[in-house]
C-alpha cells in the first residue's frame, strides 16, 4: 500500500454546506488498513452506522451536529474508540491508529 493517498478522502460530489461530514483514515504502524470496519456511535453510545474502510483505509459518515464516537474493528486488533465533534457545513478529519 506504499504510495497510497493519506487521509483527505475526496469531497467531490459532496454538498459539504448541508452535511456534517466525519471522515478519516485507519492506519497500523503508518500503513493504511483496508479491511477495517468503522462504527459511528451517538452521544449515548448507541450504534448509528458502520462502513468498511476502502483500500486506502479511508471512511466517511454524514452525521449531525454534536459529539460522536468512532469505534474501529480490524482483524487481529482490539477495538479502538475515538471521540469526534461534527458540525453541519464542516468536515471533521480523524486519524485512527490501531
Amino acid at each position, binding site marked *: 500500500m506504499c504510495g497510497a493517498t493519506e487521509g483527505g478522502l475526496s469531497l467531490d460530489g*459532496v*454538498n459539504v454546506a*448541508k*452535511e456534517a461530514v466525519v471522515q478519516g483514515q485507519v492506519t497500523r504502524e503508518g500503513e493504511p488498513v483496508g*479491511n477495517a*470496519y468503522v*462504527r*459511528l456511535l*451517538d452521544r*449515548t453510545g*448507541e*450504534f*448509528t*452506522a*458502520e*462502513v*468498511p474502510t476502502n*483500500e486506502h483505509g479511508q471512511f*466517511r*459518515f*454524514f*452525521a*449531525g451536529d454534536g459529539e460522536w464516537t468512532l*469505534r474501529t*474493528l*480490524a*482483524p*487481529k486488533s482490539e*477495538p479502538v474508540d475515538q471521540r469526534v465533534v461534527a458540525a453541519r457545513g464542516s468536515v471533521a478529519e480523524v486519524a485512527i491508529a490501531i
Partner: protein
Amino acid sequence: MSRENSLVTAQWVEDNLDNADVVLIEVDEDTTAYDKGHIRGAIKLDWSTELQDQVRRDFVNKQQFEALLSSKGVGNDHTVVLYGGNNNWFAAYAYWYFTLYGHADVKLLDGGRKKWELDSRELTDEVPTRDTTSYSAQEQDLSIRAFRDETVEAIGVKNLVDVRSPDEYAGRLLAPAHLPQEQAQRAGHIPTAANVPWSKAANDDGTFRSDDELKQIYSEAGVDWSKDTIAYCRIGERSSHTWFVLKEILGQQNVKNYDGSWTEYGSLVGVPVALGDEAGSADEGGK
C-alpha cells in the same frame, strides 16, 4: 423457526465450502464488495438491480425471481446460505425475500462478511460458474409483508417497531449516517412505534445476541409478545434484520416487514408523524 435452523456459523460455512447441496450467496449494500473478494464458491446477488423492479418501486415478480435464480444456478432443493456486509442488512433482506417467495431451506451466516473478515478467513476474487436450473417460486407469502394502509391501521393496535437509529427515529437524521442526509420526505416516526435500533440485536462483530438477551431488549422497549408486529426502517432492509430476529430466531408469530418503510410513510400526505424521542400517542395523531 429457531436459531438452529435459520443461522449457520462461519465455521459451518468453512466446513461446507465443497458441499454441492449448499449455495453461498453474497448480498451487500455496497454491490461492489463481492468483486473485491468473497467466500470461495459464493455467487452474488445485486439487491438494487436484481431484486428490485427497475421501473416501479416494488420487488421483481414471481416469474422474474424464477428466471433470476435459474440463471444463477440456484435450485429449489439447494440450501441457500446468505451473507453480506453491514452486519447482514441486505443478506437478511434477501433471506426475507427468499422466504417471501417460499424457498424451502434458507439460512444466514451469523455475523456475515464482517465476522468472516475479522476471523481472518480466506476470501477469493475467483467467480464460480454454476449450471443453470429451472427454479420454481411460490406466490408471495403476504403474511410476512406489510403495506402502508395496514401500517397506518396498526397505530395504537399492533406493535410497531422502528428499527432505525435513535437520531433517525427522533427526526434528527433522515438516513443512516453513512449516506447523505438530504431527502424529500418528512423526518420522524410512526406514532406509537417503539424504537429498537436493529443494531441492538447484534454484537459488535455482527453475530446475533443470545435468545435471552434479545427477548429482554424487545420486552424493555415495550414490545407486547401477545400482539402482531410490524417492523420498519428507511427502505426495509434493516427491518428485515429485525424481522429475522423476531420471527426466525425467537419464533414469534405474525411478524411483518413493512418494506415501504420511512421513505414511503414519510412521503404520505395526511398521515400522523411523531417527532422527538417519545413514541407519541395514537389519539393525538402524532401532532
